[in-house]
C-alpha cells in the first residue's frame, strides 16, 4: 500500500508555552498536571498513522478527544507543535506558506460539519470557489462546477442560494465544493454529523458509491461507530488526544485494544461489521452426476450438518437435505434414488463481502447459504447457526464502563 498521507509523532498543544508543555508530556506527566502547571491543553498526543491511496481512514472518538484538531493539522489549518505530516512526501508542518497554499489548492480539500458554505454566493458559486482561488476564468470554472454538481445530483439547484437548500443538500454542495478542484485527499470533519439519521444513512451510501469511481484518499472524522464501521477501510479510535487503536473494523470489534475501545464496540451492530466471508466454512459439495446420495449423507454426518450444496462440474446447481435423501425410496425398478431427484434448486446465495445483516432472512430458512464468486462458483458455505452465533457473540474485553463511554 502506497502511503498518500503519513502522520508521524504529531503533537498539538494549545497554550502560550507549548515547548515546555511538550517536554513535560514527554517525561510522562499527565495532561491534567500540565494544564494545572502551565495552562496548556494537550489537543493531540503522539499521533502516528498512514493512509494509503484510495483508502477511507476513519478517526473516531468522543467529543473533545481531539479529532478536529488532528484533521485540521493535516492541511495546516492548525500547525502541529511537533511531528511530521507528509503528503506525498512533503511535510505540511515545515513547508513554506506558498507550498502550503499550493497543496491546499491542488491536493487536499476539506468538508465541514456545518457545511461552511458561503451565504453570499449561489450553489454553483460555492462549488466554483476552489477554482476561483486557483485563478480559473469565470466561464470555465462555472462549467467545471456544473460538472461536479451533476455528480452529486444538484445541477438543478445551481443558481439557488445555499440557505434555500435542506441540510443534506447543503452538505452535498460542500462535497461538490471539495471535489471540484480535483483533490486527491478529502478531509471530512464529521460531515454528516449535523444531518438527521435518515439523510445521514443516505449520504453515507452516496459517499460509498461516489468513492467507487473517485477513489479519493479520505480521512473521515466521526463520533458514530456505526458510521465508522460502515465507511472505514481502516479505523483509528481516539481518546484524550491519543490514538488508542488502529485497524480494520473486524480487528477492532474482535480484538479491542483496551476497555475504552471494548466499551465502544460493545453495542455496535455486528451485522454490519462482519461479512459472509468472515464466517463461511470450506466449500464442501457433491457432484451431481458422479456422487451418490449415500456419499452425500456421509459427508453431512461428518460435517454435522443437515444440508449440502450440489455442483455440476464447476457450476453450483442447488442443494440436498439429509432428510430428503433419507426419505428417498428405491423406484419401481428397484434402483436407488439419485441426487437429482432430491435436488432443491431454489437456494440462497451471497457475495463474500455481503454484511451479515443481509443474511438474516436466508439464515431463517435453516438451510446453508452458498458463498459464490463473480462467476457463480461455490467458494464457501455459511451455516445459519454461525450467522446467529456471530451476531450474538460478546466481545472478549469487559464492558463495565459501557455506560459512560457510549458514542453519543
Amino acid at each position, binding site marked *: 500500500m502506497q502511503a498518500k498521507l503519513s502522520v508521524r509523532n504529531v503533537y498539538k498543544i494549545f497554550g502560550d508555552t507549548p515547548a515546555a508543555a511538550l517536554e513535560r508530556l514527554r517525561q510522562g506527566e499527565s495532561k491534567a498536571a500540565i494544564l494545572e502547571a502551565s495552562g496548556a491543553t494537550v489537543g493531540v498526543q503522539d499521533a502516528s498513522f498512514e493512509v494509503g491511496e484510495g483508502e477511507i481512514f476513519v478517526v473516531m472518538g468522543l467529543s473533545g478527544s481531539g479529532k478536529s484538531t488532528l484533521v*485540521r493539522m493535516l*492541511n495546516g*489549518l492548525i500547525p502541529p507543535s511537533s511531528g511530521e505530516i507528509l503528503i506525498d512526501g512533503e511535510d505540511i508542518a515545515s513547508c513554506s506558506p506558498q507550498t*502550503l*497554499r*499550493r*497543496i*491546499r*489548492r*491542488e491536493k*487536499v*480539500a*476539506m468538508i*465541514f460539519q*456545518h457545511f*461552511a458554505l*458561503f*451565504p*453570499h*454566493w449561489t450553489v454553483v458559486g460555492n462549488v466554483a*470557489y*476552489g477554482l*476561483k*482561488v*486557483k485563478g480559473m476564468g469565470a466561464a470555465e470554472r462555472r462549467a467545471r462546477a456544473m460538472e461536479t454538481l451533476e455528480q452529486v445530483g444538484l445541477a438543478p439547484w445551481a443558481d439557488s*442560494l445555499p*440557505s434555500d437548500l435542506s441540510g443534506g443538500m447543503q452538505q452535498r454542495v460542500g462535497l461538490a465544493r471539495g471535489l471540484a*478542484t480535483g483533490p486527491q485527499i478529502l*478531509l471530512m470533519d464529521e460531515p454528516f454529523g449535523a444531518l438527521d439519521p435518515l439523510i445521514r444513512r443516505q449520504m453515507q451510501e452516496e459517499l460509498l458509491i461516489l468513492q467507487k469511481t473517485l477513489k479519493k484518499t479520505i480521512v473521515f472524522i466521526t463520533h458514530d461507530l456505526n458510521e465508522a464501521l460502515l465507511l472505514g477501510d481502516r479505523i483509528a479510535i481516539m481518546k484524550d488526544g491519543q490514538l488508542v487503536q488502529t485497524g480494520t473494523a473486524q480487528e477492532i470489534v474482535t480484538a479491542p485494544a483496551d476497555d475504552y475501545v471494548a466499551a465502544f464496540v460493545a453495542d455496535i451492530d455486528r451485522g454490519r461489521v462482519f461479512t459472509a466471508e468472515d464466517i463461511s466454512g470450506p466449500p464442501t459439495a457433491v457432484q451431481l452426476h458422479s456422487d451418490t446420495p449415500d456419499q452425500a449423507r456421509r459427508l453431512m454426518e461428518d460435517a454435522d450438518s443437515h444440508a449440502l450444496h450440489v455442483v455440476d462440474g464447476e457450476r453450483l446447481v442447488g442443494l440436498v437435505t439429509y432428510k430428503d435423501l433419507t426419505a428417498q425410496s428405491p423406484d419401481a425398478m428397484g434402483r436407488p434414488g439419485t441426487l437429482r431427484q432430491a435436488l432443491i434448486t431454489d437456494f440462497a446465495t451471497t457475495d463474500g463481502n455481503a454484511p451479515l445483516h443481509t443474511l438474516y432472512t436466508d439464515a431463517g430458512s435453516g438451510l446453508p447459504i452458498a458463498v459464490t464468486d463473480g462467476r457463480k462458483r461455490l467458494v464457501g458455505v455459511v451455516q445459519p447457526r454461525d450467522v446467529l452465533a456471530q451476531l450474538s457473540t460478546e466481545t472478549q474485553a469487559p464492558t463495565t464502563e459501557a455506560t459512560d463511554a457510549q458514542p453519543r
Partner: protein
Amino acid sequence: MLSPADLATLPFDDWVNAFVRGWLVPNFRPAFRAAQVPVTLVLNNLNAFLLFVPMLLTTAAFAAVAWRVVGSGMAIFTLVGFAFIDMIGLWPETMTTLAMILTSVIFCAVIGIPLGILSARSDRMWKVMRPVLDIMQTIPSFVYLVPIVMLFGVGMAPGIIATIIFALPPIVRLTNLGIRNVRSDLIEAAHAFGSTGWQMLWDVQIPLALRTIMAGLNQTLMLALSMVVITALIGAGGLGLVVNTGLGRLDVGGATAGGVGIVILAIVLDRITQGLAEKAKVGRVSLGRSLLGLLRFQGSGGSGSGAQIKKAG
C-alpha cells in the same frame, strides 16, 4: 483645605501652546496644507458639478432613487422638500452642503474602511486604534476647531477636515466589527481552499461584513451632517453659514430657513441609505452589485447605506 494646587501648579496650557505653536505649526504647516489639496480637489469638483446640474434634474434623480429604494411616499417627500428648499432660495447653499457632506463621507470611507480592516486583522492595531477612536468621539468638536484653524487655516477644506475627524470613528468601528464577526468556519473554509489574504478579504470578509460596513457609513453620514453648522464657524459655507449668519444677526427667520434645509436634506439622505441597507440583505447581494449600487447612488447625489443604528455617540 489643602489641595494639590498648593503643592505645584502645572502650566499645562503653556505646554500645549508651546507644542502646537512652537513646534507643530512651524514644522508641519506645509505638510498640513498639502494634506488639504485632495480634499479641496474633490470638494470643488463635486460642488461645481452639483451647482451646474439643473435643480430639476437633481431633484428628479433623488426622487427616482428614493422611489426605487424606499417607496413612493419618500419620493414625494423628496420632490416637495427639494422644491421647498428651492422656493425659499437656499438651493445653491444646499448643494454646497451636500458637496461637503459627500466629500467628508468619501474621505471617511477611503480612510476608515482600510483602517477598520487593518484593525480587524491585527489585535495590536486594534489596541492602538481603539483609544484613538474613543478620544475622537469624546472630544467636543469645538475643541479641535482651534488647532485645525492654526494648522489648516480657515475655509471649506479645514471645515471638511474637522468633519472627517468627527465622523470617522463609526466607519472604522463598524468595519472592524463586521470583519471580526464573519463566521470563523467560513474563514477556515477559505483558508482550507488555499486563499491568499487578499482573496479572503475580497471574496469572503468584505462581502459578508458589507451590511455592517454600510451601517457604519450611514452613521458617518449622519455625523457629517451634524457638523454642518459647526464647521461654518471656521469659514465653511453652505446651509451652516445661513444658520450662523441668521443667529449672528438675531434673524430668526433666516436661521430657521437654513435649519429646515438641513433637516430636509438629512431626512432624505437617511431614508435613502436605510432603504439601501434593507435591500442589501446580508448574504443576498454580491459585493460587486452592492458597490455598483453604491457608486451609482453616490454619482447621482446621495451616499452610503445601512442605517441599523441611527444615532452615533
